[in-house]
């Protein structure tokens, strides 16, 4: 099926079982309802991280995903609160808007390589935060709060998506929604990487000159990839805003952009599912360390440093060995 081996299919099946049935069972048994919020956040951040990973795939270090997450969050919030759109329509709109912005910004900056691109994307996060502070439509520092919960959608009277506001347990609903979007994102990412576009990206990552000599329009593919990457960022950000029911200029900051990048590095840049694992480990790990109080940051960063010191090629490199690709 879809060219997967049976081993891969079993793996995917186990994964789906774990997140859709296993997690609710465990949470129900232990009573740690707060884990729903943690895991929902992990799923959403993993979507944005998937975008960052994709820009890595064309050889660009992207520390600007926070900018696109923030754009997505604002676009969705404004469409829902001020224009009265349904959240479910504002969600793809937020992604698309982020992608359009990415095209406009990408045209000049994607010519930069290496640390230059990394640094300018870092600055980009700051630009969007400051723009959000300055524009009237984003409400400045006050931000947009009291975003209503997603309303239901029905076609010809048949409910397709339920009304979140009428639900008793929105935590579970948000968890499922986030997981479904995350799975779609990673399925698309996997497909993309293993299709021709992915092969062209790899050729560009390894040598842009040679890629253009075999007829690859590298400028075009860079833009397409950056737009897709930012689409994921916008999607994750919009969903986040909806769960928090608010968005502020500080909702996504430079530190968040750095974290998205760290998720990818930690999971391993050679593996499509690396950013998902990286996000889980980093975010969940951070959450678990909460009980250490003021030592939380110290322990967290120490573990981070130890991991990178002894596994510089990412967590997944334990299984696949150095330089593996898949």
């Amino acid at each position, binding site marked *: 099926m879809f060219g997967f081996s049976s081993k891969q299919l079993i793996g995917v099946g186990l994964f789906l079982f774990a997140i859709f049935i296993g997690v609710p069972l465990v949470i129900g048994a232990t009573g740690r309802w707060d884990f729903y919020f943690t895991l929902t956040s992990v799923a959403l951040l993993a979507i944005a991280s998937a975008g960052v990973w994709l820009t890595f795939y064309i050889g660009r270090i992207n520390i600007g995903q926070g900018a696109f997450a923030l754009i997505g969050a604002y676009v969705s919030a404004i469409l829902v609160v001020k224009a009265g759109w349904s959240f479910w329509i504002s969600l793809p709109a937020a992604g698309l808007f982020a992608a359009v912005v990415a095209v406009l910004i990408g045209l*000049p900056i994607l010519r930069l390589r290496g640390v*230059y691109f990394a640094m300018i994307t870092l600055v980009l996060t700051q630009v969007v935060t400051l723009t959000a502070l*300055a524009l009237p439509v984003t409400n400045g520092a006050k931000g947009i709060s009291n975003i209503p919960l997603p309303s239901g959608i029905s076609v010809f009277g048949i409910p397709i998506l339920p009304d979140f506001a009428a639900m008793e347990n929105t935590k579970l609903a948000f968890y499922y929604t986030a997981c479904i979007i995350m799975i779609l994102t990673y399925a698309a990412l996997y497909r993309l990487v293993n299709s021709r576009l992915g092969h062209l990206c790899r050729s560009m990552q390894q040598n842009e000159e040679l890629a253009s000599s075999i007829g690859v329009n590298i400028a075009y593919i860079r833009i397409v990839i950056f737009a897709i990457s930012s689409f994921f960022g916008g999607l994750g950000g919009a969903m986040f805003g909806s769960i928090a029911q608010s968005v502020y200029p500080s909702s996504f900051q430079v530190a968040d952009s750095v974290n998205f990048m*760290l998720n990818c590095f930690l999971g391993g840049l050679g593996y499509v599912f690396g950013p998902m694992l990286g996000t889980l480990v980093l975010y969940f790990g951070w959450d678990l360390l909460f009980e250490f109080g003021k030592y939380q*940051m110290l322990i967290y*960063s120490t573990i981070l*440093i130890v991991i990178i010191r002894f596994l*510089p090629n990412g967590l997944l490199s334990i299984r696949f060995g150095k330089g593996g690709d898949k």
Partner: protein
Amino acid sequence: MEQILANGVYLGSQYAMIALGLTLIFALMNVLNFAHGQMYVIGGFVTYTFYGQWGVPFVLALVMSCVTLAILGALIEKFLFAPVIKGSAREESTMLLAAGIAFFLDAVILLVFGEKQRGVPKIVDGVFNWDFRIIMPYDRILICLLAILSIVAFIGLMQYTKTGRALRALAQDRTAAQLMGVNVDRYSMIGFALGAMLAGLVGGLLVTITGVNLGMGGPTSIKAFMMVMIGGAGVISGAIWGGIILGFMEAIGLALLYQYGDITYLLIFVSLMIFLAIRPQGLMGKPWG
């Protein structure tokens, strides 16, 4: 106008020093040191502790800032960056390490020095006032002079000493430097220590004026990145120019656009992006660093 120029020189000299340290580390090891701002903050806290808390003479406190950061930088290079660079398939992995170190230093600062804003007594009193055209407290002038002096000393070190020549050779071409008999491992460590020391020195200098707090690390790193980009990564003259240009832009922007708040920074960021789109390698950089 004169006031703006004076502010520009003052800011620019501080910024140039921060950028110098960052660009030195980048040139030597191809490492984007995210922890640079935190090193600056630690430098500030060390001077605060020695001068502000224990009453040690200011100059001695500055020296302590330098020594602390130099040792810290050397240890970080030897036990973290060097092995990771050797064992990593992609050199970008050092970015993760640098970010981890930034978090770690933030945590250490939080535990040792706390979250509060800290200031120290003025090192000299009084205000220089030239006909209300330039008004500047004497301590700012002194700090500015010290910063310029340090920059000159640093350039002298790089140009005329054996260490400086080795570092420049290393920055230009690692393999060639090795062939020429430069002890690459040793000088990488020295260079990193030197870069960290510069950050600590500026921190120590500026604590007398702006004070210091935990939250200053990240924004300082971003500013340093910008200066390095303006001038061209890994180029010493570029870092100095970058610092001066950013200093002047800030001074001018804050004077003209005072009532619009952060719009100065927004304009600086946007113009930087436009500038880099036209000239990706910065003012002085080689194409593609």
